[in-house]
Every structure is written in C-alpha cells, then in structure tokens.
C-alpha cells in the first residue's frame, strides 16, 4: 500500500535521508523511530509530497504526487497549522469540500465527539490551544477516510483522553485495512500499537523489525533502539 524505494533527500550539503526503502502493507501499523535529527520528519514530508526527493514513493500503487495518491492518504503534521479565521466546523467543511467527501457532517461530528471538540465547533482556529489544533488537524486528516495515514509525532501536545482516543482510532484503521505510518521518538506511546518498526539513525534505516519476530527472539524494541542509536552516536 505504501512503498518507498531508495528515498534520498539532500538539503544543500546535509543528507537528511539516505536510500530509505521500506513498505507498509494494508492493515499494518508501522513506526518510524529515531532520535531527534534522525530524518524521520523529512521522510514523512517526502512521502506526503511536500518535499522534493530522489527515489520512488508509491501510495496505493500511484506515485505519491499524483492526484490518485493524494486522494488516498492523510497527513497529520508535527506542528498543527490551522486557518486563523475559520471555525472548527468550517475546517471540517472545507476539507470535506476539497476532498469531495459525501455526507461529511455525521463523519465530522463523529470525529469531533471522539476528541471532545463538539463544544468548540464555533471557535476560530486562532482561538484554539496547541493541543486543540492538533486534535483538529487529526480530525481533518481522517474525515476523508484515507487508506494510508501518515502521522508525524501525533501524541505531542495531546491530553490523555485524546491520546487514548487516537490509539483506538489507529487500531480501528488497522482493522479496516488502512496502512498507518507513525513517526515518533516516544517509544512508550506506540508500545502497544506497532506491527513493524523502522529504526532510523543519521538519515538511514539502521534496523527493520516486525513485532512477531521480536517477540519470537525475545528482543525489546527499547533495547534495540538504544543499542542502535547510542552505539552509532558513540562511533560518530
């Protein structure tokens, strides 16, 4: 569903991503792990089509910048950015109109109820706290029911209820057959969620593990993470 082949992103003289290759299948929750500056957000932005890159990225068998691909993925950025002068409900309406979502109101209400935002529907974007903006950003990305969902540090700034709700939602998306890719450095937050982990360090994928493999081998994701990241940093 999501295929990345030899993704390389270079900013002037800095190699942010070097030859990343991985896939996320339908009904799979993959996590992109790594310390700060590992290149996770850059990779997510390249996949979302926001940055130029070398290599190939396909979403549902379409190149990621094609209209068909855009119709099929949702992206939740690390820093939420709402429209200052639109209300919460107008954000949902705008995205629904732009993505041509049928019968959007019940869907919007369902999402807003889950994230406890129904009392904020008439609040303007600029009146929302950072956490509220993050919730709205999630609701906007999910209203079009995307088949591939890209989360960039989704739990930062959310309250405990929203974190629980988001985890439930990710579980539901997996059950419905969506492919989910989450970029994070907070290992605890994705402990019970992940099916596949890509551990990044210095712009490269240092390890790929499936949960089933790790459980069989008795490996711990946390130990592996520190082994890779701290080991490499020492060498550097």
């Amino acid at each position, binding site marked *: 569903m999501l295929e990345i082949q030899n993704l390389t992103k270079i900013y002037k003289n800095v190699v942010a991503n070097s030859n990343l290759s991985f896939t996320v299948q339908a009904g799979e929750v993959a996590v992109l792990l790594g310390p700060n500056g590992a290149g996770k957000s850059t990779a997510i*932005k390249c996949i*979302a*089509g*926001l*940055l*130029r890159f070398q290599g190939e990225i396909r979403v549902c068998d379409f190149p990621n*910048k094609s*209209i*068909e691909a*855009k*119709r099929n993925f949702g*992206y939740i*950025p*690390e*820093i939420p*950015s709402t*429209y*200052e*002068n*639109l*209300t919460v*409900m*107008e954000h949902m*309406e*705008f*995205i629904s*109109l*732009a*993505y*041509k979502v049928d019968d959007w109101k019940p869907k919007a209400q369902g999402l807003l109820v889950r994230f406890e935002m129904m009392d904020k529907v*008439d609040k*303007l974007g600029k009146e929302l706290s950072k956490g509220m903006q993050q919730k709205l950003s999630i609701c906007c990305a999910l209203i079009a029911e995307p088949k591939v969902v890209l989360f960039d540090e989704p739990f930062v700034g959310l309250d405990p209820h929203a974190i629980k709700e988001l985890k439930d939602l990710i579980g539901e998306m997996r059950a419905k057959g969506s492919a989910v890719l989450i970029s994070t450095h907070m290992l605890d937050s994705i402990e019970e969620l992940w099916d596949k982990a890509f551990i990044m360090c210095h712009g490269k994928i240092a390890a790929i593990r499936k949960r089933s493999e790790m459980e069989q081998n008795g490996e711990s994701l946390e130990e592996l993470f520190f082994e890779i990241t701290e080991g490499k940093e020492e060498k550097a």
Partner: protein
Amino acid sequence: MSAVWYLCRKQVKNFIFDLIHKPGKLALYIIIAVIIVVAILSRIFAYQNETIVFSDIYFLHGGYIGVMLLIAIPILLRGLQSGATVFRMSDVHFLFNAPISPKLVLSYGLVKQLLTSVFIVFLLLTNSYQLSNLFGLTVWQTVILAIGVAVMLCAVQMLAMVIYSLTNGRKFLVHVALTILYVCILALAAIYLAEFYVNGMDVNSAISSLGSPYLEYVPIIGWMKGAIFGFILGNYVTAGIYTTLFAVVIGIAIVVFVARDLDFYEDVLESTARFDQIRRNKREGKMNFGRGKVNVKTTGLKRGSGASALFYKHLLEQKRRNRFFISMPSMFLYLINIVFVVILSVSSRNIILSDGILICSAIMSCYIQFFFSTSGDWSLELEKATIYLLPARSFQKLLWASVTTIMRPMIDGILMYTVLCPVLQANPLTALVCAAAYGSMGLLYTACNILFRRLFGKISVNRGPVMIVYMLFVALITAPGIVTSILIFIFLSNLSIFIVGLPFITWNVGISILIIGLCRNMLDYVEYND
C-alpha cells in the same frame, strides 16, 4: 548584573558574526551606510550660493506631528488594551525566570529598545538627502529630527507600559487614560482648526496652520515636536522648556514604575507573545493586516468542490478579516489617494488637468501596490500544507487560490476611480483606463510572485537581496508595456489617454497569463517547509 551584561555582549557579538556569514544582509547595511555618507557629504559640499526654491517648512511641521501621532497613538492604544512591551519571548523564557532583579531586567529591555530606536535613526538618515533638498535642512538638523523620532518611540513604549500597569485592566482607570489620550488628539485638531479659521480659511492658512506654536502645548507629542523644532530653528529657550517637560514626564513614569515595584512580568506577557508572532510573520514574509477580534455571525463555506473550495474559503476569510470586505491595504490606498489628489489639485492650481491628476494617482497607486502584493491570499495559502495535499491538479489549485488576490486590485481600482472621476470631473474613459491599469498591475505582481515562488521557493534567508532582484525583475517585465504606451503618447499625441493606456494594460495581462501558465505545475515542485 553580570548575566545581563554577558547577554548584551554576546548579542552584539553574535549580531556582527551573523552579519559576516550573511553577505546579502551585510551588503544591505553597507549600502545604507554609503547612502547616509553620500547624503551627508553631498549636503556639506553643496554650493552655498546656489539659489534653490525649498518647499514650505510648514509641511515639515505638519509631517513631523503626523509621524509623532503615528508612533504614539497605536502604541498607547494597544498598550491600554493589552499592554506594551520592550521584550522578546526569549527574554520572557530566560530572563523573567532567572534570579535577576526585575528592575535590572527592565533596564535591559529599555536599553535594547533604545538601540533599536538608534537603528531607526540610521534608517531615517538615509532619507536626509530628500529632506535637505525639500526643506533646505542641514545634516545635523536632519539628525535632530531622527533623534526625536527614536526618543519618542522609546518613551512612548515606556509610557504605555506604565499606564497599563497602573490601570491594570480596571475599566474606570482605562477610561480615564483613554479620555486623556483622546483629549490630547482632539486638542491638536481643535488648535489646528482654530488657526485655520483665524488665518482666513484658505489654502495658505491650511498650510501655515500646520506650524502653529500652540500645537506644541499639547503634552508629549506637541512637546517633543516643540523641542525638536526649537533646536532646529535655534530657539533654544523653547527647546529647553519642552525638553524639560518631556523629560520630567517620562522620568516620573520611570520612577513610578520602579518605585511602586510594579509586577510588570504578567503585564507584558501577552503583548510580547503578540509582537513575537508579528516579528515571525514579518520574517517569513507574511504581513498581518487582520483584525484582532473577529465576531463570528454566520458560519459555513456552503459552496466549492475540489480546488474551488480554496476560493470560497478565501472569501469567507476575507469577510472575517476585513471590515465591510475592505482590507487594510485598500483602506490605506484609498486614504493616500484622497490626500494625494487633494494636494495635487490645490498645489497645481489648475496647471495639471483632472485627467493628469488621475493618471498621476494611478502611477502612484501601482507603485504602492507593489509593497502589498506579497501578502495576498494565495501566498498565505502556501504557508499551510493543505494546498499541497489536496487531490487536484496543481494548475487548478494555483488558479483557485489566486482568484481573490487577482480580484482585489481590480475591485480596488474600480472603486477608487469611480469615486475620483466625478470628484475631479475627469473623463470617464481615463478613469476606466486607470482602474484597468491598476488591476492589470495587480495581476502582474501576482504572476511575478508566483514565478519567484516557483524559482526560489519560500525565501527565508537573504530576503533583502532577493527582494531587490524581484523589484528589478518587476521593473524589467513592465518596461515593454510602459515604453510602448509612452511612445504612442509622444508620437500620436492626438489619441485619447484611453488608447494610450491600452498597450500597457494588454502587455500586463498577456505577460501575466504567460507567466502563470508557465508556472502551472509549481505546487508539484515547490517545497513546503514549516
């Protein structure tokens, strides 16, 4: 003390190092320095016996009071509502929490503000050549004018902080402070009108009343103007009195602030955050003209599908952002044009015909429009990820996202010249061509913006040099249209202005369509970086 002193030293040192690493910024500062030196030298070595006709000095009196009002009123009004600030968010995060005396922190803020004001003095000095030419001022007189502006800026910030802390949101005290402020403004207007009435209510009295000495009786604004013009004109007694009055009031404000041990940290928090956001927007090329508080009456986009939803969203945002759908840049433009047309009509004394005044106004408006052209809806849209993610063709998104930006100058042009034409009793065809020229320039600016975004992406470093290149590019691209219209005007002088303006308008529209067409895939290539 050592921590604050260390911070000051490091900030100055890092500013210099940063300048060395940014050649564009360094070049800009060198250019400013050269302009100042050239202006000073040209005035020093100018022929003393040369007979030059200078503009009426009363214009300078009026202009200076205008500048003082523009500095003081917004700061004081904002200060009364949400406080003023001389701090940055980094000061709030690091200094406010540190075990440093609040008085020392305040002194640090004031010194920093004073240094910023000194920088403004240098910027003003770049215009000293024009002031010298217009009013026959010497270099030092210009320096005194600039120092007055800088001191005023710093003093008013301090005053606003004190007023806010003293009133502390208490309605009665806020009303009292507002009343005093409005009384001062009304006093200025009343004194001017009284002088105008006494002096004969004609054009000459309108101009000479600007220099009325009674205006200098008005506290703060008048005193500062009186002090500065006292020094400039050699009336040192007057200058001394007004300087003392001004210094006493500001001194009392500082003493009250320090002696009463006002807890100013809370008072400056909101305004510091707001100003930091404005500075950030400015650095990112976003201009914030929006209204602070928005009353949401009706909600919903209701229309739009796919990329066209962007257009209906922009309409809704404009409705919320602007009063009566008229944006702040448009208001500014209308105001400038009214003043310009009145001054030109009065000063030309029928030498310039109505049609000529309209054309002059159109040329000036096209030039002013350049400075607002980077803040359209479409460029704001590029600051959000949504436009890149929408499942629609790049060209469709680009067009729908730029419709309101293209429409705005067209509507402004029509409104402006529909009003000015009957007022000046000008030819309606001339008004039509002026409106069309203004609208077509708006289209061209948008096209050039799109092209530069396509070529350079989001410009976050070396904005100054890129802006200079941009200005030169716009000048170059408009040249064929301008030259053709001028040639037609010279060689076919019998033709009406309407025909003369057509090549300019046609060229603007044609080249804009070509540029936008060539950049149709820009959203697939431009990078989005938050």
